[in-house]
């Protein structure tokens, strides 16, 4: 009966929960074995009685039996998710979106700039780079969080680093915790590092101000908007271009045309 009805979610179970930081958890969700997605796509996950919300898939495209979402407890649905544990049921729709234009990114250097939970938006791309490392030139991950405590998906970062992905971490403040990375903003790296410019794509995902500043700084270095990609977060109710909530001020939908956009295809006001 529900075949072909895009509003009908699949019933899936939580396989495990990982505590990432004081307010962020990763949920590993069992798919039953035939789950496929493209890097950059997202799922809409619901808790019965609380609603649904879109989440970037943070795990590798190679995994068929499970996928991971990393969730900050910030709204009704995410707080309800945080109360769930192993074996509990979630309602899943998707995957949705176009994801990363891999054909445009491959055979180039890649500089990925992520802020806070924005790391989740680029995780599936980093997994792709990790699996297909020879398809890319120099790859950088510049990642900043509020404090050392707020660095999420630490084990992934370590794994990615093992495949010659140059990783630079920053925190806004150390809160007295041991820290040997940069203290300041992740965008500082754009000024201080010798980042590649020729034949290079830049990918930005993070809080609005961080995206805006990163974009401006990259333009200031002479990088063209058509070499810069952003992964956008907008409100969504359907994921399939009907509810109108994620419609951008140029007529593109974040859900079906994005969530990743090349900046020459976006008005600057939407790069946030």
């Amino acid at each position, binding site marked *: *009966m*529900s075949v*072909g*009805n*895009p*509003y*009908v*979610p699949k*019933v899936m179970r939580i396989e495990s929960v990982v505590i990432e930081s004081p307010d962020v958890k990763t949920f590993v969700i069992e798919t039953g074995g035939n789950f496929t997605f493209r890097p950059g796509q997202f799922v809409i996950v*619901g808790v*019965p*009685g*609380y*609603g*649904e*919300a879109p989440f970037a898939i943070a795990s590798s495209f190679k995994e068929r039996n499970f996928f991971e979402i990393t969730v*900050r407890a*910030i*709204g009704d649905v*995410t707080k309800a998710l945080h109360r769930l544990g192993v*074996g509990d*049921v979630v*309602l899943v729709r998707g995957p949705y979106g176009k994801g990363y234009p891999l054909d445009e990114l491959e055979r180039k250097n890649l500089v990925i700039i992520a802020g806070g939970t924005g790391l989740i938006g680029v995780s599936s791309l980093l997994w792709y780079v990790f699996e297909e490392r020879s398809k890319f030139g120099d790859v950088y991950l510049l990642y900043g969080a509020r404090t050392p405590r707020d660095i999420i998906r630490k084990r992934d970062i370590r794994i990615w680093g093992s495949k010659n992905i140059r990783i630079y971490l920053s925190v806004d403040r150390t809160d007295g915790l041991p820290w040997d990375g940069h203290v300041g903003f992740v965008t500082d790296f754009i000024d201080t590092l010798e980042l590649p410019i020729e034949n290079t794509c830049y990918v930005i995902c993070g809080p*609005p101000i961080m995206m805006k500043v990163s974009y401006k700084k990259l333009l200031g270095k002479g990088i063209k908007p058509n070499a810069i990609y952003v992964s956008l*977060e*907008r*409100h969504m*109710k*359907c994921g*399939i*271009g*009907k*509810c*109108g*909530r994620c*419609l951008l*001020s*140029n*007529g593109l939908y974040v859900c079906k045309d994005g969530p990743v956009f090349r900046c020459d295809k976006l*008005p600057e*006001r939407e790069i946030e």
Partner: protein
Amino acid sequence: MSIRWFRYLGESISTDLFNILKSLGYEVIAPTKMGNNYVLRAVSSPDEIVTDFVRTTNTPKHFLYPNEVTLIRWFRSNGDVKVEAPLEVKKQAFMFIKPCDANAIRVLDTILLDEPPDPIYSSLRGNSLVIVHDCLRSDELCFCESVNARVPYVYDLWIVPTNGDVYIGVGSSKGQDIINKLKVEPITYQPKIRELGTNRIPKEMLRKLGELYESPKWREISEKCLLCGGCTSVCPSCTCFEVIDDVGTDLRSGSRVRIWTSCVLRSFTLVAGGRIIRKSRDERFKFRYYHKFVFSISRYGFYFCTGCGRCSAQCPVGMNVIEVIKDVCR
């Protein structure tokens, strides 16, 4: 698009059509007069149907894409959750809607049947029949001729009464099936579609609108707007929706319900953590204009506004689409 035309030879087109529609099992939804208003509703006799009016308060959207529709129901039992999707099947014939409102159905089709199609709309629309009656009366709020919505692009039959004759255009095979039951003769000429004098927004202004998104005039013009959402609630082509989860009194079952919402509301672009994408009045005010007049053209090649004038008629502070666009472009 070549339309096949017929001349009606019977006594009363409304009686004949009503009887055919009823014999085919349709619920006939038609414009009627209720007090001082004209309202689309299910009729039980052709005598209830009116044709000489400006606009109905409700629109085909209320029947094809109703407010408050259940998307799914869920039931919890023994740690498991079952999900089901109710799908209502209804045969609805819209008899004698105006060309502008038929064109609003075209907008609904474009948004809701785009891949992947909305199953609820798809079912209601697939079982529907659209019979357009040509427009007999317009007022100063109408501007269908400015947005290329004077003639219908989506219909099964198009009734055009002229000089005592009634002509019928056929727009689909379903329409042809009905024509086959009517007393008609085919004609080789096209009846004259009269001009309504509603070309109230110069076309070059609408073309210019795209470049004026950041114009400071929007701020000035939107000052008066209450951001109440009345305009979008009466709009025959607005489809934006909100979804709410309802929990049953047993706390073990519930439903997920779709309700209409509006892009002028503050909550419309609220994202995680309380951030609002379009914070200011003017950003929210102008967004509807851009969706109707600019994004629609760039993505689909036609306007998502059909010039019906309902939003202007509805507005509690008297904002008028025609004047707003002229003011911005001036």
